[in-house]
């Protein structure tokens, strides 16, 4: 179910009524109802996907118990965690990467056309990348010494908690399980914070991301947008630059919007979810970018991939190899395509250069160097998004060629669907980053008082109801 849909509006009202009914939540009944609602939420688009999430949950719940049981036998423990990881990655691999694998294999090895078509046509269940990572992290944590939960209800609730189920943030078990049976009364301040986050999230998604999305890609598969014009051979640079600027704003607002809605919903239900975005386009280095963008994924990759590979403990050369490997796999996690791998490789290269050249030492010392490297980082980030959005290398190549030609013929903005609206709403992105910059710098005017927060929320709500775009799926649903 999409947060930005009428069905979710009805679903949300049901959840609110239940929450009001169970004011001192923490009871097993409340948790059971939420599990049931979460499965309805997940299965709304395709009911059969519920079996997949149940399968993943059952595997990891029992794997964790078995690891605990054989705590004294390292070999058995290792075998169990390996089985769990293989099962989770197998599910993810089958649904997400089979088509990609077959497509690449068929270029070198002729396959039966019927089989190849069937395998390429496997549909990716939404959110599978998120919940398999979450489920896997639990088993690995138990393997590393954490206590498993003995309640299947708690575990399935942790995996299926609907606010974060389909697009994160990726929550760790030790940050969530302890919250389940706390007694949580309804407190106005918490609810207001929840609603404030939800309003901000809906504004980012419905107003900014959806209006930009409409301008970039058209309203549906039948129509075309700026991106389609920008990837035409010999297209004007103006459109290519619009595409290059608009997409990073769209993906940020789409994903950050989702996270804010998820966090706000969790507050209303009495839970806390981690922050996932912190003004990423303020990042002065590649390393900082990944501390600001999709934070829960980057910390997951650090804890469950980078550190097991040796992290920075072995040698400088090995550290760089590890960084690159993590970023390549991070790219592949986002999508089964070579363009996503290139996106990861560009970021990996940035991180490697940054570490190898010791850029942090220089930027710490000189303001000019800091500013210069900030511009380089942000330019590379924008460049990398071109590959992320492109379906083929040729598409990215044409867009880059068009942008590099630097011819800027006059174009009539009104001729392009919704471009006018997109160019209005995109200003929310620099404003949001300016606010974050001033907050980080300790600027008093932008550390809002409660009254200022209320006024801003009021305006954002009206802006959302008045200027929403044509609701589309959240981009990260497909990952």
């Amino acid at each position, binding site marked *: 179910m999409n947060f930005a*849909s*009428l*069905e979710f509006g009805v679903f949300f009202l049901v959840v609110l009524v239940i929450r009001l009914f169970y004011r*001192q939540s923490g009871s097993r009944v409340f948790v059971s109802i939420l599990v049931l609602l979460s499965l309805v939420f997940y299965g*709304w*688009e395709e*009911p059969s996907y519920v079996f997949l999430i149940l399968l993943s949950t059952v595997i990891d719940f029992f794997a964790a118990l078995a690891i605990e049981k054989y705590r004294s036998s390292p070999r058995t423990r290792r075998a169990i965690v390996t089985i769990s990881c293989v099962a989770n990655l197998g599910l993810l691999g089958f649904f997400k990467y089979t088509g990609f694998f077959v497509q690449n294999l068929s270029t070198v090895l002729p396959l039966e056309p019927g089989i190849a078509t069937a395998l390429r046509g496997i549909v990716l269940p939404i959110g599978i990348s998120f919940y398999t990572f979450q489920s896997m992290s639990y088993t690995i944590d138990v393997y590393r010494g954490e206590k498993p939960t003995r309640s299947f209800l708690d575990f399935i609730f942790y995996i299926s908690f609907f606010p974060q189920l389909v697009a994160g943030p990726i929550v760790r078990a030790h940050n969530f399980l302890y*919250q389940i049976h*706390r*007694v*949580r*009364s*309804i*407190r*106005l*301040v*918490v*609810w*207001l*914070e929840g609603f404030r986050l939800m309003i901000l999230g809906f504004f980012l998604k419905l107003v900014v991301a959806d*209006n930009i999305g409409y301008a970039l890609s058209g*309203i*549906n*598969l*039948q*129509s075309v947008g700026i991106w389609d014009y920008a990837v035409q051979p010999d297209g004007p640079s103006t459109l290519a630059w619009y595409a290059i600027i608009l997409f990073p704003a769209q993906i940020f607002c789409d994903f950050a919007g989702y996270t804010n809605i998820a966090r706000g919903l969790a*507050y209303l239900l*009495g*839970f*806390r979810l981690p922050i996932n975005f912190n003004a990423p386009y303020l990042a002065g280095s590649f390393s900082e970018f990944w501390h600001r963008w999709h934070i829960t994924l980057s910390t997951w990759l650090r804890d469950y991939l980078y550190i097991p590979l040796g992290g920075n403990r072995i040698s400088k050369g090995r550290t760089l190899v590890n960084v690159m490997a993590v970023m390549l796999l991070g790219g592949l996690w986002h999508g089964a395509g070579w363009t996503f791998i290139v996106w990861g490789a560009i970021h990996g290269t940035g991180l490697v250069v940054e570490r190898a050249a010791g850029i942090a030492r220089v930027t710490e010392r000189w303001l000019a160097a800091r500013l210069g490297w900030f511009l380089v980082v942000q330019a590379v980030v924008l460049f990398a998004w071109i590959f992320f959005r492109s379906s083929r290398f040729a598409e990215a190549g044409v867009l880059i060629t068009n942008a590099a030609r630097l011819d800027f013929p006059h174009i009539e903005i*009104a001729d*392009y*669907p*919704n*471009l*006018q*609206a997109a160019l*209005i709403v995109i200003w929310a992105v620099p404003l949001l980053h300016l606010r974050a910059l001033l907050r980080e710098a300790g600027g008093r005017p932008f550390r809002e008082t*409660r*009254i200022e*927060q*209320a*006024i801003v*929320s*009021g*305006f954002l*709500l*009206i802006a959302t*109801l*008045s*200027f*929403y*775009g*044509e609701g589309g799926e959240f981009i990260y649903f497909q990952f």
Partner: protein
Amino acid sequence: MSAAPSSPSVGGPLSKRTRGAILHLSIFACSVMLVLAAARWYDRSDRLLRLERTEYQAGIPDISAGTYLGSRGTSLAYNAFAYDWDHVVDAARKADVLFLGNSRAVYGFRPQYFQPWLDKIGLRGFNMAFFGGGGFAPLYVIRKFDLHPKMVVINDDGFFLLRDTAWGKAARTEGPWRAFKDYYSKTARWLVQKRLHQIVPPLRAFTGRRSLVVYRSIRDGAPIFAFGESEGKPMTRLPPDEPSRAMRELVDQSLPIVRAGSKKFLEEMDRRGILVVLTAIQDNGEFAGYYLAKALNEENRRIYVHAMLPNLMGQAGSHMDAWSSKRLMDDLMPKILALPQVQALARKPAGTRP
């Protein structure tokens, strides 16, 4: 940022935080009301925000008025079929002649202009062209509802590409549950929007081009324009006899794809004993569909009726207006009716259909 509560609330006088929260809520409500009041005041003083200038004034389809929602940039028309909307399917099932194609066919093949011609030979027509192209949708609908018209008239403007349009994809993959959800959630959404925008002005409707709201008649599929599409442009160009080199290359590239699509479609029509009449109507562009149709039909050797007319008028883009549709039908329909195969159909009693 507030932390999640970890202890139950206490009774007695309101705490400082709760009082702050109530103040927060009050200020929030005041902000909302202030903006709304300003918008309503502005609405009275300036016509810019008046609701009737937006698409939401068009309302939702009124089945009792004999219409269903054809297009608002959505796939509702397809879902009207997929969800087995009895009225629409019945009309399509009862028709002797189905007019198929893309949105140009929706505008070009208007029942009020083709039906008088069909009446002469006692046939009944239904415009089953879809916005967004043909794709798999027409073939899917014909198979799913087991339609047996005597004849189909196709605007072969990329009709046989059978590409994955949103409708084509939906036709092949959506089950009844999805179609049901899609149809009713979109209709409900529009109803909510209509009510919402009686309070909050829909500002985005005033940027860029206007949306299009088109109903389709349940009886014959005729388009009924509820909102948008008011700026007509002349459609003066006719396709040159010979395509340009670039166009020829494009046609050559597309031929293998349409060849496969046309084989699939025409075999199904032959199996059902349906007469196929092909044509290609004005597209006001590079006429790619026209050249492709001609090239394909040199192989297929089906009935093809030339229908390009000079000096038509566009209702919007390459969608012709009512006057142009009448001119087109007055030109095309006599040619179709003169075909011996069509004359034979006219003599065929209705009971002979499979």
